[in-house]
């Protein structure tokens, strides 16, 4: 009787563990072995490659370029999504906006639920050099010199792509912050007001420390997300163009695997992505010490 009862909980977690094992851990381990092989998807042939793929990884100049783009993605996303997302949430939770805040909340959140493919197609119209909304706007207000072939120039392509992600994802971070802010006990704010604190002071002394946990969650999400970004450059600049100026590490992995048919090298790149995101997550978990109290 007693032993049987102890089996039940394991049965409950079993499906989940099995699924994780089959669809997450197994591929991860297989991927590790593939990275030491030359694998051709088409002919199905594979041969042992030793450290060849790793040597290619460290000598491939595009890897560095892609990583720099990913870092740009991460930094800008941190500033806009986590930073401005928090500011946006704090403003919407202010007393004087209470009546209209739900409307704004919905408006800011809508991009999050639109499919990324649709958004990218939409923005490829916005960025069109001659008939695009952006350049037409710049021309109409007399800023002709600012009009650029946004997605076609090596200087602007990556930033144009990053901007789309900010537009889409800021609402998501904002929503999470709103939830966190609503959980802050109201009496803290009342006490601060009685003590004569201004809005800015309240934000920095109460709101900010109280949502620390959520800042951690959001920055973890955006930074790991920034190192896995694929859809935006894949659709907007057709795989990181012009040349490789807006390529990201995930797009590079895809191209090596499916366009150039070198699955082994693609596996090596994906291992690099795994290591980077794992290390980042570890650093953040350690430095924020989540769950250890305030």
């Amino acid at each position, binding site marked *: 009787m007693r032993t049987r009862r102890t089996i039940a909980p394991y049965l409950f977690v079993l499906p989940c563990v099995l699924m994780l094992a089959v669809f997450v851990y197994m591929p991860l381990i297989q991927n590790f072995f593939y990275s030491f092989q030359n694998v051709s998807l*088409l002919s199905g042939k594979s041969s042992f490659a030793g450290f060849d793929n790793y040597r290619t990884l460290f000598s491939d100049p595009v890897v560095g370029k892609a990583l720099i783009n990913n870092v740009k993605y991460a930094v800008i996303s941190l500033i806009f999504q986590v930073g401005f997302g928090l500011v946006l949430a704090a403003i919407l939770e202010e007393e004087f906006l209470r009546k209209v805040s739900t409307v704004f909340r919905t408006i800011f959140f809508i991009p999050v639920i639109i499919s990324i493919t649709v958004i990218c197609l939409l923005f490829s119209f916005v960025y069109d050099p001659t008939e695009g909304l952006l350049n037409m706007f710049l021309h109409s207000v007399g800023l002709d010199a600012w009009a650029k072939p946004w997605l076609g120039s090596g200087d602007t392509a990556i930033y144009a792509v990053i901007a789309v992600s900010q537009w889409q994802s800021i609402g998501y971070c904002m929503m999470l912050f709103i939830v966190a802010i609503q959980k802050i006990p109201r009496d803290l704010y009342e006490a601060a007001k009685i003590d004569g604190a201004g809005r800015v002071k309240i934000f920095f002394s109460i709101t900010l420390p109280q949502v620390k946990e959520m800042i951690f969650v959001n920055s973890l999400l955006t930074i790991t997300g920034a190192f896995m970004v694929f859809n935006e450059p894949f659709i907007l*600049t057709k795989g990181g*163009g*012009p040349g490789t100026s807006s390529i990201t590490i995930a797009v590079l992995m895809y191209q090596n695997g499916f*366009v150039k048919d070198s699955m082994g090298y693609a596996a090596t790149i994906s291992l690099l992505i795994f290591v980077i995101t794992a290390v980042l997550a570890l650093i953040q978990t350690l430095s924020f010490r989540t769950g250890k109290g305030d």
Partner: protein
Amino acid sequence: MYRMGRRLGLLMLAGLLVVMTACNSNNSTPSANGNGDAKGKTTTLKFFHRWPNEPRNSYFNYIKEEFEKQNPGVKIEMESVLNDSYKEKIKVLVSSGEIPDVFSSWSDSFAESLVSSGRVEDLTSMYKSDPNWTKTLVQNQMKSFTFDDKIYGVPFTMDGKVFFYNKKIFNKLGLEKPKTWDEFIALLDKLKASGYDTPIIEGLQDSWAVGHYLGTMNQRMMSPEVLATDYAGGTGKFTDPGYLQVLKYWQKLSSYMGPNATSVNHEATRNMFIAGKVPIHYLQFAELGYLKDKPDLEFDYFNFPQFSEGKGNAEGLTGAPEGFMISKETANKALAEKFVKFIVSPENAAKFQHDVGSMTTVIGAATKENSPPGTLEAIKLIQNAAETTPWLDNAMDASVADAYMRGGQAIAAGIETPENVIKEVQDAAAKLPAVKK
């Protein structure tokens, strides 16, 4: 309490079992469906092609319905995705066991890489056993699907790429078709001086469009022997100075396309040509159908001009057929062959010619009545071309072609030099034997 837990546990296990078997059955359905020869059962033929865009989409819907009508008990399961996505998807399908019974393919190195999977049916006997049918096709198109003397595909569309120009603009400015590269550049300068800021344009966001240019330019510049050695996987070096010169010429040519060229796609720039905004555009004969949409557009074409130092054939034509392949693992080989023959039958080819406006490999399918102007001349040009070169990405390994196309794009965007790009091409070619084979 514990009973309930056990029951729930069992239920979950059962659920898991269902999920697992569902995953499994996914793999086994195609082969189970394959044995549909028994009476009363429907036979399903999976057909995968790369033309989901109009007018080709309607044409293939018609083919599917008509074939099903003529062959009761047969169901065609048709799917399609466009161009670059098709290239990636068909490779995955062929390498996995999910290969469709009939599917479309590009020629040469693309077809060869599919054939290397060992899952593509050798169709030589299909040609040999039915000489009357074989005779209906333009004969020089089969070689693009022939590897080791075996024919692996049935070519359907026939193509060539030339410079189309706006006749009205040329007549107004008194310009003539250029024969040499220098004449061509002088022509572009004249057009520019006459107020056409972009005398020629291409949607360089599409890297294949870059490849079409570089493929032709390499063919014109290099001697066929050098080209053959460099394009073949494993022996390519790309050290001949001609290759660098080609990229320098490309830098010059792309400078006429304006700063916006790298941020628009081919379709957009083709529309600019059709609208008469740009006087010259490098187009495929397969695109003739789009040009007839605007009846007052008067156009003509000229072949790619020759470089003064060029060692390649000046009359050569870039372009390759696309066609259909049959899976080696199909359970209905006879039916699949019948379906392919149905698509390339003279009647259906004539319908394709009429509906789509681009030409097929079927002899006599195009007539003056059913084709856009220029088609019959184009067919003659292809049939008599001194030499036909496949598209760059069909002519060489995909990784070298990628270095070429991305590099060409970067040169046009002004962020790379020809010297760096040719080095990347050389590196990609040098890596080939180590990475593959």
